[in-house]
């Protein structure tokens, strides 16, 4: 299997879907002539021309809405936010017009649109530019929220997102664009709502996705090496729909659960998963569910503060040790 970068996997997914369906187009800031602020759309302008790979002015509300309108007549826009922090300028389009059109019109309109871009902190961009928007968008009925962890998932899930008849929020992470992984040469799609077991283990379940999943994997390796603790890592891959069955199955086996996210803990994704897990596994839990997340503060600039706020492998490992009553 060829090994490619995360950003190339996304690029391939978009190109293949644009080859397949003339109604697919990409719009966003610096996506065309600049080849993408993070080079995800490299070469696409040359290949598809300026009507299908479109540079927008800095008008997020405008071009997000343009996407929704075009989708209402059957086009399949891919709207790139340079980061999802800027999607907040277009919040109304993303949380009202996109997800509620079908419902409000009694099913007359579908909105097959993908909003994609980076989400997350860690680059010292300070409070306004460091949003992790997982929970913000997973809160909204009518939206689907997808977070790939590997290049393989990035490609398969993005192709599914583009073909989906509903709006999909597709969350990437800047720090992962250069990561390499095996991606099949032949075409494939991956379903939403189907979790992946990233690591098997019998002592504690960790639910983690995207960049947080990489943190969890590092923690799991450390726990294995240092203490023989075997964590099982469940990566839901889509947060809405959420594959609670696979998570619950694992928790029934391990008897405890740690959630890892890079967003705020209050009303966060971990809180939602914890609520659903205790509904399904109340009698199986030997310890309360532990949420690991960002500290509950706006993201600071200074590296020493930032590193304290964003959860690292150490904090995940500590949480797992607590959950399994490890006595060091």
């Amino acid at each position: 299997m060829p090994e490619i970068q995360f950003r190339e996997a996304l690029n391939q997914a978009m190109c293949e879907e644009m080859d397949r369906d003339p109604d697919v187009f990409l719009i966003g800031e610096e996506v065309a002539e600049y080849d993408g602020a993070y080079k995800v759309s490299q070469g696409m302008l040359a290949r598809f021309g300026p009507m299908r790979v479109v540079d927008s002015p800095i008008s997020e509300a405008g071009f997000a809405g343009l996407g929704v309108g075009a989708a209402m007549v059957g086009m399949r826009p891919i709207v790139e936010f340079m980061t999802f922090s800027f999607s907040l300028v277009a919040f109304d389009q993303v949380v009202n017009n996109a997800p509620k059109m079908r419902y409000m019109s009694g099913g007359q309109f579908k909105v097959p649109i993908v909003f994609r871009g980076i989400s997350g902190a860690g680059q010292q961009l300070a409070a306004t530019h460091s949003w992790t928007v997982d929970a913000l968008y997973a809160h909204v009925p009518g939206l689907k929220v997808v977070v790939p962890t590997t290049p393989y998932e990035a490609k398969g899930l993005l192709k599914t997102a583009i073909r989906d008849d509903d709006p999909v929020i597709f969350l990437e992470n800047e720090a992962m664009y250069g990561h390499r992984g095996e991606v099949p040469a032949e075409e494939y799609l991956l379903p939403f709502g189907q979790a992946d077991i990233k690591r098997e283990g019998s002592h504690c379940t960790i639910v983690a996705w995207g960049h947080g999943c990489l943190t969890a994997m590092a923690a799991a390796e450390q726990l294995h090496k240092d203490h023989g603790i075997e964590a099982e890592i469940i990566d839901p891959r889509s947060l809405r729909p959420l594959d609670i069955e696979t998570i619950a199955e694992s928790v029934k086996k391990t008897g405890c659960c740690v959630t890892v996210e890079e967003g705020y803990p209050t009303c966060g994704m971990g809180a939602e998963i914890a609520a659903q897990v205790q509904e399904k596994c109340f009698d199986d839990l030997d310890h309360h569910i532990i949420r690991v997340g960002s500290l509950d503060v706006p993201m600071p600039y200074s590296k020493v503060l930032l590193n304290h706020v964003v959860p690292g492998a150490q904090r995940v490992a500590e949480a797992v040790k607590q959950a399994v009553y490890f006595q060091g």
Partner: protein
Amino acid sequence: MITLVEQSQKVEPSPAQMMDWYRQMALIRQFELRCAQSYQQQKIGGFCHLYVGQEAVAVGSIAAVRPSDYIITAYRDHGHAIARGMDCESLLAELYGKASGCSHGKGGSMHFFDREKNFFGGHAIVAGHVPLAVGLGWAIKYRKEDRVVLCYFGDGAMNQGAFHEALNLAGLFKLPIIFMVENNGYGMGTHVQRASAVVELKLRTGDAYGIPGKHVDGMDCLAMYEMTLAAAQYCRAGHGALFIEVKTYRYRGHSMSDPQKYRTREEVAGYQEHDPIGRLEKVLRAKNLLDDSKVQAINNEIHAHVEEAHHRADAAPFPQTQDVWKDVYANPYGPYQL
């Protein structure tokens, strides 16, 4: 077209003023070059947008307003902060993420603040601060104060909804605000011609929002001063807001990681021939206020000043990790004692 000031009312800046502006511009330039170096050394993180080439805009315009006037700008804010008199050490400390930084290490390059100096930031969301300028202007009018707001933003910001809502409000309520677009030709890698339906930016406010527009050459510090002085008088007289299109140019990339494939070296070199510092230097030489040795002495002095600020900032302590909890709220429980 409105006339801002009668020719007879024009005040010629004094030699001392012009020398001061020359120093300020030279200081900004050396500060920015220090930043570029410190960024390479990874003392600075995140996004860092340099002001090199645009120095005359902040220096000439801020010189024309009073310390009591309000200033607000976008993320390319180093030049404005220095022109406002914030000291290099507190700015570098901020860039290095230190507790002694002007925002205590919470803000970084894009979020310089100084309440005492009426410097209201440093804002990273494109055009997100333009409505704030309207709020500042509203408060001035409400309290019947003798102040104006000087609000800077880039050409790219004019394509945001927030900008247009703000301009309409300012026009409607006749608020004392000078809206100053620093048109440096590009929003990131996108030329104005590829982003704006109308290329002459001042046309986008006058008829639309009842805010008269003016043009000024942003590479000319003296022209910046004169225009802003007249604009401030207009606002103070209660006529409402003004819009000034400043034509300028940034020599460096948009931020520290910009391959700049969207323009040629020749284009940059062409603008450098009209360098704002060189231009004022010529004026001062003609007036016998500067000669080679004075220029050298000034540059040496500024270099020493920036380097000292750098060393102090570099040696300053980082914030304590528990400081992350500070300043989230004034009081989480509101005006109650628990």
